[in-house]
């Protein structure tokens, strides 16, 4: 299942790249892309575990770029 989320206060392009790398490493994420320009995160992940994976993604986002918030 693919879902798109808006990102708030994503201020630096390098952080976006770091976030994307970190999210792609999360178990269960098939593909993730962070667009700095569109301020969007798109995640493709297991449908059954989606919510749990999203929690992990939010956690990762907090670690890599604490200023940025994922709008769920």
């Amino acid at each position: 299942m693919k879902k798109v989320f808006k990102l708030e206060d994503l201020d630096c392009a390098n952080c976006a790249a770091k976030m994307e790398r970190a999210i792609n490493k999360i178990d269960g994420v098939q593909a993730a892309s962070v667009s700095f320009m569109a301020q969007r995160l798109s995640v493709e992940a297991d449908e059954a575990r989606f919510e749990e994976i999203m929690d992990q993604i939010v956690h990762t986002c907090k670690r890599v770029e604490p200023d940025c918030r994922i709008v769920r």
Partner: protein
Amino acid sequence: MKGFSLTRKQRKNLIRIVVALALFVVLFIIDRVRPLGEVFSGPAAWVFPFALYLVVYLLIGYDVLWRAVRNICHGQVFDENFLMCVATLGAFALAIYRGATGQTIEGFDEACAVLLFYQVGEFFQDYATARSRRSISGLMDIRPDYANVLRGGKAQRVDPSEVAVGEVIAVNPGEKIPLDGVVVSGASTLDTRALTGESLPREVAVGGEVISGSVNVTTRLEVRVTKAFYDSTVSKILELVESASEQKSKTENFITKFAKYYTPAVVIAALLLAVVPGLITSDWSVWVYRALSFLVVSCPCALVISIPLSFFAGIGAASRYGILIKGSNYLEKFNKADTFVFDKTGTLTKGNFAVTKIAPADRAGEVLRLAAIAEHDSGHPIARSIVARYGKEIEEGFALTNVAGEGILAERGEERILCGNAALMRRYGVKFAPEAGVGTVVYVAKNGAFVGSLLVADEVKPEAKEVIADLNAMRCKTVMLTGDNEAVAASVAGELGVTSYRASLLPQNKVEEVEKLLAAEGRQGAVCFVGDGINDAPVLMRSDIGIAMGGVGSDAAIEASDIVLMQDDLRGLPLAKRIAKKTMAIVFENIVFSLLIKLAILVLSACGIANMWLAVFGDVGVAVLAILNAMRVNSKYTAKKGASLPREAAAE
């Protein structure tokens, strides 16, 4: 000024920067007039200027310090906050060291200034990015804000997503059509410019389909909604443009990967620069200072930010002309496109038949009149094209007889008109002048005597020849694929000037032809396939870049292709190619420019020529310049150099 709108966060930052800058300047001037280090004497004289500058430093840099500490706690070491902190705190420490060892007290101002300029640069970077983001998404200003739905006889203003399929909405003049639908009452003119780049207004009347995103110009319309908001054209297009920057280009991936190694490498180089010559010369403060400048330039932001921004601007510029590019990667690949494969019918030609020649010319009116009488009852495209060309009232009272596979016999009293192919003429023993032109020939005879012939063929699009010439001039191969026979194909190919053509192809053969081109030896460029998207989805998918024409309202075409020309106008191709070329040129400029400046500053600071001020410029200054350069992508384009499209003038 409308463009100068800041967010709350930006405004707060700006105030902070201005206050800190004012304080800094005052302090700096006082320090020059009456050195602060001499106010007090003794070994602790440095404490006074240190304390004053520290106030400015903390005011301008508290967030950077805080973020650096927080990110280290999260295991993110090499981020720019940390690097700036190390560099500036290092400069402070050096100044304290000088003061404490009795050397001249200096360097406090520099540490403050570096952080101050870093913040100014960050502010501009942030502002420029937000600005360009807004100006580009402003080009796609097609999102409707509301819908006037008619419920219980009254118009209610609701969000477009709340309107169900089958409901009727009212669209007043000047309003955007919020959802796809069919007109149930009223007739008006629609402006589809924002959607397709087409400046010519479209007329609609009852029963006509309307597409969301177009603007109603003249009169009030009532529209029965046929698609829910998320299915409507406007949502699909917005989704497509917004997700385009998620499909990353190779260049972008390369740069982010490069950035990942660049920062640690520069930090290690800085460490070595401080330690090795420091040990040899034992002149520690000089080498540590040079190493600190290294840390300032080690942020990869200028590079990382300017690449996606350039692509985003390129995609935005294209969308302004009704060209939707579905990802940065396609824009990148399209620049390398050197083979354009066209489907003939519906792409290079209009896909409808028209009378292209009437012989003999001096009896043209009579030939056409007689042919129209015979053909007016038939539904065949050829017959319809003849009737359409005649365009006048057709004489009645003829008895029409169909001669299967040969033509039509029309009789009224003594009059007897024959209209059909050569076989029909021979059957009735009429001597006729054979027509050698390409297409379908219709011969006309009256009362046993030959009158003339009509040549009916598919019409070539008016811009096709110019576009093919333009593409050939760009050193691209142009290949035409068609299901028509050799003679027709050769003639059209000759007229258009395509590099090569393949005739008598079945739909599945088209995929094979494209695969042959894809497998060609020594191929470097990308192979594009241009089609109308109706039944060429497999070819669109198989080619490197699938380009669908006239995409408005055709979901299948938008789905299967990588680039969509919203307007059924081939001139979008060279235009898209120019945009791709310019985007890639700017991407390249930005990479080279940022890397060269960074490298130069690294070398200069290692030799002790560049100071930390210049290093800050090497970081944020370069980023701002790269962003400004990226915005150049978004300038004006024409399909052909020097020539301007009519829609171009209207796009402004």
